[in-house]
């Protein structure tokens, strides 16, 4: 479709493009694309999934469920690639040398993704440890181990430093008596940027004086509270950016 330079035509053309992109044409295009598109390799899909998980983990205020199978596949592939590169580092001819450089660069990028993803998770676990002690299923086994031993060390340190000098009924670190819990929960209402991947119907936006509704159509970019879009992100209709 031609994009003409004159402003009035441009705005009408923009409206036409927006309107024609919705509804039946979209579905037909989706079906055609899924039938005729070349099969995307599992590695590419995994890289995409890992990237999305990384962006989501860096953006969301609370810990998202741990993608166990994805990380297992990724780590296995990384290990194989590292041993592959070590084998290739033997004979040094110019052509293979350059291939080696490419492989190593990509390996470093991949390792950065995995490391940054894990670091984002550990940062959240460190920020709200007692809260995540009550939700062990969102953590991986290693993270659970880390949390348990870290908390054990800390509470030991606290007791020996000053906590043992407190009266007995004030010594708990996760006291929930008295109506106010000592356990800090991550703030579920922080603002997040998100893009809608599939039409997801309406969501309620809690304002200070009224509740308004918004329609999530494909391709929209919104600034919303995390609690509003949490369900849609879990379903995969909305991604965080």
């Amino acid at each position, binding site marked *: 479709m031609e994009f003409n330079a004159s402003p009035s035509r441009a705005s009408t053309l923009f409206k036409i493009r927006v309107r024609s992109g919705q509804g039946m044409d979209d579905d037909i295009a989706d079906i055609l694309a899924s039938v005729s598109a070349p099969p995307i390799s599992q590695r590419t899909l995994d*890289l*995409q999934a890992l*990237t999305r998980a990384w962006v989501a983990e860096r953006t969301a*205020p609370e810990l998202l469920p741990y993608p166990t199978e994805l990380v297992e596949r990724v780590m296995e592939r990384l290990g194989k690639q590292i041993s592959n590169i070590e084998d290739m580092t033997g004979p040094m001819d110019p052509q293979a040398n350059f291939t080696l450089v490419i492989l190593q660069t990509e390996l470093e990028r*991949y390792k950065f993704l995995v490391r940054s993803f894990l670091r984002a998770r550990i940062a959240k676990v460190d920020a709200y440890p007692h809260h995540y002690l009550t939700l062990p299923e969102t953590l991986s086994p290693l993270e659970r181990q880390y949390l348990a031993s870290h908390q054990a060390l800390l509470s030991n340190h606290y007791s020996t430093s000053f906590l043992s000098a407190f009266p007995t009924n004030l010594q708990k670190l996760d006291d929930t008596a008295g109506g106010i819990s000592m356990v800090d929960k991550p703030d579920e209402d922080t*603002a997040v940027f998100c893009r809608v991947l599939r039409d997801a119907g309406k969501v309620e936006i809690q304002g200070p004086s009224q509740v308004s509704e918004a329609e999530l159509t494909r391709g*929209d970019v919104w600034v919303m509270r995390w609690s*509003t879009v949490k369900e849609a992100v879990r379903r995969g209709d909305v*991604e965080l*950016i």
Partner: protein
Amino acid sequence: MAPPLPPGLTPSEVGFLCEMEHVTVIPRQTLDGLELLGGPTGALKPPFPTPLPLWLALLLKKQRRANITPPPWLSVEALTQILDFETDERTAELFSPSPNLPPATTSAPLGDAATARAQADALPYHWLEIGHLLITHAADDFDDLDAVRKLLRDLREVRMSKLRKGFEVLDAGGGVKMNGVGGMEIAEVRGFVGGVVDGLRRLNRSREESRKERETEERENGLGSSSYRDDEDEDML
């Protein structure tokens, strides 16, 4: 052990993310197809153009083994059209539309947004980063480098000023739609917008909680009866 970064991607992370987008490359040397961790790459046979991830294309360009074709939206004509659209007063509320989304199974990155098959009248999500990287490292592949650089700068200023004007509608509940905005632009305003929305939420928290309580009471007791019953109870005490 873990760096206490604020939530959201930093600009350098957005740059890292954009390097995964594909661009069209015209190779100067043959190179076999590689089996990368991210999937197989096409073999390089000059002079056929091949799509490659941007980080690989930049690596090849630095070693003078390939040339990068600028995507269709990164030319003087396309950028001028988009700039005209942005500066037109009638579109003061909107950004220029982003390209049509690929089918629902894929999303950025690894889309077609910066290859030679990209749409010429829409700015993809990573337009600023990709444009900047290509201008810096692939300068000789452009026809009119200075014009493109100037147009990119103008576009960036116009869009940032539109974003800043949009700060006026920021509300404690969020719910602001901004289609067509780019990745680096979001990274720039994320701190401010997030801070404003959270701050407004904290300031209005008591008002919002009392409104919610009122609504739950109304739902449980029927409209208008709750306050009357409260007064009666107080009188009885």
